[in-house]
């Protein structure tokens, strides 16, 4: 069970309640799908840590194995994988994303 990449992923997840593994940075996303999730998180005003997988090939491949999820972006809340771009979009449009974040004790600054 000692996979050094998984340990680094888990360290990020433990120290940040909301983590987005993405291509590019929150300020400068380098993929349309990552950009869309950043836009949603910013819109509902939730603080999050962005991890740029383009800067780290081990994390880029490792995160796919970690969640058994083949694509990026990936959103984690309190260490749990929530979904990729499609799921986050669907949850946001249904109003479930804000509810879920509040239930998880995450501060949300805007009503969406």
């Amino acid at each position, binding site marked *: 069970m000692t996979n050094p990449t998984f340990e680094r992923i888990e360290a990020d997840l433990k120290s940040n309640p909301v983590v987005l593994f993405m291509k590019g940075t929150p300020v400068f996303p380098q993929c349309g799908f990552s950009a869309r999730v950043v836009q949603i998180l910013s819109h509902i005003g939730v603080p999050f840590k962005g991890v740029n997988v383009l800067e780290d090939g081990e994390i880029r491949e490792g995160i796919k194995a970690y969640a058994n*999820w*083949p*694509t990026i972006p990936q959103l984690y809340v309190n260490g749990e*994988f929530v*979904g990729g*771009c*499609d*799921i986050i979009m*669907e949850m946001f449009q249904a109003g479930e994303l804000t509810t879920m974040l509040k239930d998880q004790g995450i501060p949300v600054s805007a009503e969406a």
Partner: protein
Amino acid sequence: MAMQPAEIEALIKAALPDAQVTIEDLAGDGDHYAATVVSEAFRGRSRVQQHQIVYAALQGRMGGALHALALQTSAPT
């Protein structure tokens, strides 16, 4: 590297024979698709699990040969 819509549909139906699959070529480049999949297999599963079932059906092509597949999954109503 691109995949044909019929190939995507065939892979999904091989794993989920009851599935109703609609595939739309978003960019006309054979590389950016949107798929709607309706199957009994999704009933009672979370969204993440539903998408994982479809990704498993695609046998590793997602994120590789298939760059972008926007997915919408549901059980029949």
